[in-house]
């Protein structure tokens, strides 16, 4: 590479852009950039890179106290420097790139109204430029003017259909506008072409499916909700892996990481709640263990959100609710006690019902009667048996033994008499005490009806028992995590990067630069 063709200070600037946007080595990049800025304080590219550096530094700040004050001040300072440098150029000769840079610096300074005007000017000068349209879209997005933002991003996308990050910007707006189908089409496109490695697309897919899951759940479409939450969890968990950078489009920011963890935990619980409503008793029984795993996962996700995170309050609240739920009615308890309790009730009720039916049908049989009718004590009246006792011989005390016997029915007594005494002594019914006593049956018709209905009631109650004692997770109201607007800095390419100054002073150098002595 012939170094004479290039401005070597640019090398340092480009190197620092790699250092902060690829390596996340902010300190090294900062020192390099400050160095080049000192050498060429009027170079807008270097000022813009410094702004990008501080913006990224703020986004990736992982200090426990979240102290970004210094970087925010630096960002504002350099944005102002950029504006001051631009102001040195008379407005009459400004071109699209000047307005675009003005828009960028104003956006860094959060002067959105002015930034908007600057981007609009840039577009009016060069309608084919993509960057000012993206800038415009971002400003509208910050102002929550979704329709305008969408239009700006759509136009930019038409100009550069290969830009994945731009598509993701558009998706953010589409989700805000509940245009889920279109959003998913764009996301599927990005996911497919990047082998599910574009971090913004993964986070937004998670957000999109979480929203879709909620929607399905609101419509009581539990099966759909279950599937959507499942997808959301899949994408969010994948996005969380970008904490290690790996082969993802970029590293996840601490704020995004917290959002992703929260949203993932949120989806775990919502999925659990969606699943809880569906299925038969047995299915729910089998599902209890899995439900516990969901709760554990959610607790794990919420637990990963540090104290200082923007959503730590919501996360702590969710953890408290989940722990309380686990303590009071953990799914294991549900499985071990409550679900069988319902079954036992049903079984018992069924048994009672069946028994009642049998007893009622066979109420006239002796066996049933013996059970269902209260016992009547029958015996031979003493006045009738005394005279006969003398018939007993010394060796055979049949009548004496008989006199001591009691029977619960006169027929039983007569039968036994006839078996023991034979035809020798005939018994008369009048001899029997309580022979004509009236039986009060236990299983009356009213009682039968009552038992039948009561059993049926218990069966229904037994079947309904798990629903009544269903997981209390349903009552946990989780705050929906707000997903921060994804702001990423795309890396520079040389076409945009090379400044106009690359050959500045070439003519002057050609005469004034030192040449060796020559003999001519």
């Amino acid at each position: 590479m012939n170094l004479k063709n290039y401005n070597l200070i640019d090398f340092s600037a480009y190197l620092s852009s790699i250092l902060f946007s690829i390596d996340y080595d902010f300190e090294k990049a900062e020192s390099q950039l400050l160095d080049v800025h000192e050498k060429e304080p009027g170079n807008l590219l270097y000022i813009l890179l410094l702004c990008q550096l501080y913006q990224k530094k703020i986004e990736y700040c992982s200090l426990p106290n979240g102290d970004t004050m210094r970087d925010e001040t630096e960002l504002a300072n350099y944005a102002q420097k950029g504006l001051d440098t631009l102001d040195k150029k008379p407005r009459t000769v400004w071109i699209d790139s000047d307005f675009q840079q003005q828009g960028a610096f104003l956006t860094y300074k959060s002067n959105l109204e002015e930034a908007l005007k600057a981007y609009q000017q840039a577009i009016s000068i060069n309608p084919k430029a993509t960057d000012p349209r993206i800038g415009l879209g971002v400003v509208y997005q910050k102002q929550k003017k979704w329709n305008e933002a969408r239009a700006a991003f759509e136009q930019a996308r038409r100009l550069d259909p290969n830009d994945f990050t731009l598509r993701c910007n558009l998706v953010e707006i589409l989700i805000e506008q509940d245009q889920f189908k279109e959003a998913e089409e764009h996301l599927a496109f990005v996911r497919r072409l990047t082998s599910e490695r574009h971090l913004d697309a993964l986070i937004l897919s998670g957000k999109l499916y979480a929203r879709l899951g909620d929607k399905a759940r609101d419509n009581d479409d539990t099966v759909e909700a279950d599937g959507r939450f499942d997808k959301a969890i899949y994408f969010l968990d994948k996005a969380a892996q970008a904490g290690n950078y790996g082969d993802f489009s970029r590293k996840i920011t601490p704020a995004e990481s917290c959002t992703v963890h929260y949203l993932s935990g949120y989806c775990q619980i919502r999925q659990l709640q969606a699943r809880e409503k569906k299925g038969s008793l047995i299915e729910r029984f089998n599902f209890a263990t899995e439900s516990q795993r969901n709760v554990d996962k959610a607790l794990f996700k919420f637990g990963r959100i540090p104290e200082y995170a923007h959503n730590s309050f919501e996360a702590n609240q969710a953890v408290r609710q989940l722990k309380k739920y686990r303590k009071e009615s953990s799914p294991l308890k549900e499985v071990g006690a409550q679900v069988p309790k319902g079954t036992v009730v049903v079984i018992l009720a069924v048994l009672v019902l069946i028994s009642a039916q049998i007893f009622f049908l066979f109420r006239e049989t002796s066996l049933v009667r013996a059970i269902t009718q209260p016992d009547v004590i029958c015996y031979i009246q003493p006045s009738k048996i005394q005279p006969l006792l003398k018939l007993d011989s010394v060796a055979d005390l049949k009548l004496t033994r008989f006199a001591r016997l009691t029977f619960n029915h006169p027929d039983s007594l007569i039968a036994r008499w006839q078996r023991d005494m034979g035809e020798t002594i005939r018994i008369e019914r009048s001899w029997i005490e309580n022979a004509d006593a009236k039986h009060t049956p236990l299983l009356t018709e009213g009682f039968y009806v009552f038992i039948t209905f009561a059993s049926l009631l218990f069966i229904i109650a037994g079947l309904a028992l798990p629903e009544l004692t269903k997981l209390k997770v349903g009552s946990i109201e989780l705050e929906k995590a707000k997903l921060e607007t994804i702001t990423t800095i795309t890396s520079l390419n040389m076409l945009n990067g090379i400044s106009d100054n690359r050959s500045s002073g070439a003519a002057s150098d050609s005469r004034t630069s030192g040449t060796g002595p020559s003999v001519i």
Partner: protein
Amino acid sequence: MGNLTIIDNLPTQPVADTLQEVDQFLKTQPDPDAVAQLVKDLYSFGTKIMNDDPVAAEKLFRKVTELDPNYANGYINWGFSLHKQGRNDEAVDQYKISLTKSPEPSLALDVLKWLGGKDVKRFQDVLDALQAQPDLVTPLDKEKLLGDMEFQLKHFSKAAEAYERAQQLAAADPFILKALGDVYCALLQEPKASQYYTQAITLATESVYTTEQAISALPQVASGQVQPDRNSLETTVTEARKTLARLHYEIGDTLLSLDADLDQIWAHWKEAVQIAPGAESTLSIADTLYNNGQANRDRLTKAVDTYTTYNQASPTPDSDAYVLLNLGLCHYYLYNYPAATETLTKAAQSAGDYQHYANYWLGVLYSGQRKFEEAEPYYQRAFRQKPDEYFIIEGLILCLTALGKKDEALTICQKTKARYSTDQERTAEISYLIGNIHLDFKELDKALLYYKEALQQDPRHVFARHNLAHILEKKGEYQKARNNWNKAKSNYLDLLIKSTPV
């Protein structure tokens, strides 16, 4: 004499053929006079071509020094050829050898000044050479050089001693007093420095005044009548004014290097410009202001005024393309586009070394206003004038791309590439530009192909690597992109180390 054959065809035939013929000639065992003549001829040939073809010239001077190992000039021009190729370390070696071959004092002075100059900074080597060979240059030049080198090495007391010895040898030389002022300025003894500067200026002013007095003392003559004394005195006064202006310029330059206030510097420079508006010092002031003032409106405005003054003071205004070019660029950096266009157009009209620059900058000027249609002819002209200058090819390609003339841009690249078929570094540059064209037209795969090609031809082409990584990222191949970013990072570091002066 056999060498006549060689000399007759020298300017037209390739150097390789010439050297082959020299070898054949030497096999004939020519007499010493013939060899001496051959050395002179070869030296002359090399000197003619060394600015345009330093590589070929180097071969000739190598042969010259082989034939006459004591020929100092041969080593000096060999060194110059190497310097022209950017091989300064090797050039220094040849220059140092030349000093051991008893060069002419004026040549030796040139060599020593180059060695101790801003580019090479071999201050200690100069001191060593002067210590080893005290008679290499005149005693006055020797003391001044010793002072300069010791000053550069920050041995201020030794520098002061050397300058004082020089002052004893040339008491009327205001520049020695100025040098002493510089020493005390560096020692932060401003009153003493100021005293020396004032002395120097007074001395130079007196010289001007005395000569002016002498002119006014001459009797008046009728117009058209020649008066030799007057003419001679007028020449002297002009030279004295130039010296005084130069003195003011150099004092201002020293103050600039010490980061003094621009008003303080300008006080000296303004004087210099007023005293001798058409002198080289005025141009030097304008150049310094321009080279140090691209981000400073005040300096650029002063540069404009100074260049304008210099141009107007010229016997033939608007004829120096260099001045017009730099004046045009000052207007450009001051965003005074109409004036820049007018001045650069004038610069582009005069054929010479700066014509292609003027056309190129006119192209840049129009491109910068998004007037690509107007810019294209200027780029095309610059390209026709210097088809091998990378920045011109790049400018033209960017302009054509902006105009949507992809095929035209590609054709230019392919033709240029064909010309460099044996030069991998240059071919890589063109492949990189082709990649840029495709990237601009959002043809990522084609762009990728050409960046890869550029890297095959020159693996250290960091911009090709940078854009390759960028495209891979755009295509969602993040791991590959990251690998290339890392390589680009190493390349940048290597190139920055390579470009950092020792």
